[in-house]
């Protein structure tokens, strides 16, 4: 089975801190994604990457950046955390280049609280 591992299950940070959320997948998948999930808003796409060092903005990229230096690892960076970035963050990967053609495999999520 594909495993997508997110480094932290729960994280508490202070406003203004730089925050790194790490995600690793073990199946040599091409595509990786970062979503955030908030009550009543469903999942919203922040960034995705279809190759090493490549990245594309999703629907809500403001306040975030990403890094993909190795194929298996996709990092989400909050340059200066704010309280409105308190959320559940979900990482996902898929084998092929076109997300809607493929199964997405998700990690268990990181619940980030910014105080």
């Amino acid at each position, binding site marked *: 089975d594909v495993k997508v591992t997110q480094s932290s299950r729960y994280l508490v940070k202070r406003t203004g801190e730089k925050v790194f959320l790490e995600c690793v997948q073990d199946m040599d998948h091409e595509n990786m994604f970062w979503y955030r999930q908030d009550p009543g808003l469903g999942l919203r796409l922040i960034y995705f990457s279809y190759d090493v060092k490549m990245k*594309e903005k999703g*629907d809500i990229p403001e306040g975030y950046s990403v890094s993909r230096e190795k194929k298996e690892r996709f990092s989400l960076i909050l340059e200066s955390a704010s309280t409105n970035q308190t959320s559940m963050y979900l990482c996902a990967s898929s084998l092929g280049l*076109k*997300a*809607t*053609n493929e*199964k997405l495999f998700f*990690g268990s*999520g990181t619940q980030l609280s910014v105080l």
Partner: protein
Amino acid sequence: LAKTTQPISMDSYEGQEVNITCSHNNIATNDYITWYQQFPSQGPRFIIQGYKTKVTNEVASLFIPADRKSSTLSLPRVSLSDTAVYYCLVGWGDDKIIFGKGTRLHILP
């Protein structure tokens, strides 16, 4: 990406068959229909994908009428552990997936 509409929530009882219908009036010729399931405190999980007629796997069945403007996810003999949010997605060849708010299914004993 075609827009989908599905009920916000549904209740059912253990042992019953549950059908969740999704509307996608603007589905394109090449689009597939995909369903994901999300348990509390977990990421979504792929359940089933289909193009037309009927698809069945070990988890669910997917019924798609000839006009493909809607689809129905069928869960046979549900148990309490089927309590989850179910997402209907439509698309093909897209770089990204947009998840809506899904249907919150609550199974009662």
